[in-house]
């Protein structure tokens, strides 16, 4: 099973055409393994991207070097997944097994 320890979801809100262009170019950098949850759509519209841990630093450096601000929507994806799994297990213990 794929784990997502250290993965973060960043939110970028492009405020200029140049920034939008830069963010769109990120989609072609396959080695960063970025997963766009919300793709670049237009100025002022949020772009949400899940960033694997190894790509976090390079991407943040790249964004800061281009003056593109971002916020962290999800600090650690794996943490949320584990909460979800725990909740599912608790629920399946509660409910009658539908057999």
């Amino acid at each position, binding site marked *: 099973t*794929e784990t997502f320890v250290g993965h973060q*979801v960043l939110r970028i809100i492009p405020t200029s055409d140049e920034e939008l262009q830069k963010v769109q170019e990120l989609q072609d950098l396959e080695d960063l393994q970025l*997963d766009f949850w919300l793709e670049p759509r237009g100025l002022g519209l949020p772009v949400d991207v899940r960033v694997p841990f190894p790509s976090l630093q390079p991407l943040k450096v790249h964004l800061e070097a281009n003056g593109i601000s971002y916020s962290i929507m999800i600090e650690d994806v794996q943490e*949320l997944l584990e909460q*979800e799994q725990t909740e599912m297990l608790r629920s399946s213990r509660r409910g*009658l097994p539908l057999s």
Partner: protein
Amino acid sequence: TSTFDYSSYHTLDEIYNFMDLLVAENPNLVSKLEIGRSTENRPLYVLKFSKGGSNRPAFWIDTGIHSREWVTQASGVWFAKKIVQDHENDQVLASLLDTMDIFLEIVTNPDGFAFTHTKNRMWRKTRSKHSGSICVGVDPNRNWDAGFGGSGASSNPCSETYHGPYANSEPEVKAIVDFVKSHGNIKAFVSIHSYSQLLLYPYGYTRTPVPDQKELHEISEKAVAALTSLYGTQYKYGSIITTIYQASGGTIDWTYDQGIKYSFTFELRDTGRYGFLLPAKQIIPAAEETWLALQVIMQHTLDNPY
């Protein structure tokens, strides 16, 4: 199904068991159709809610075409139970079922859904393999024969928005295409995604407004008002291309071009705080508010036969 936990996420088997139980409990209202098989040969099940009669006009709802959007399959389960619970005492539902059938496909992408439970929670696409590429899967919302292959989809098999080698290459898509064509009397088609809190209508593949744009916009406005009235959840609405982006090969562009005028896509909760990892405690509120919007679309479909 009264002990089923609607406020939790469930596996594919649990959802398929739920469907069998709902049918067994309501043999005069609910039946289960198998409209095809997925790439990995899983059955593609559609629940049919009908008070009888053959080939009546119908209302279609699908959830889970993008497998990681778990709140949508969970909402589909809740909708199924809601229809059974309210089909006699809810005026909109009762009058709709007097003359129309409802089709509900809860797990539209079972291979992807099973994969999100076993291997990769973030999986979005189908699990098809196409020669020449190490990457797996096609975006099932880019694989329809509506502007297929145009901009707004990727020709790169490793992309999350890969449109596939040709339109309807994905059995999960082809099964619905064949069903819609053979039924021939579907009057409304609602495909449910998450997240972003949007209600969208065609087109996504072109900037040309649909002929029924004014009517679809008015319906959207009323539907969003009903949705927001419950918990204050804010939605935007409009055509796909003006509200989010250009997307070619999309489901409701194809259904609209088939003559299904009332074609809509929902993007459910939330706006990004949790995204695809929406906490399970939000399943029921999300389903309840969406249901109010669906009822507006149902009522309009009923009041405006075509």
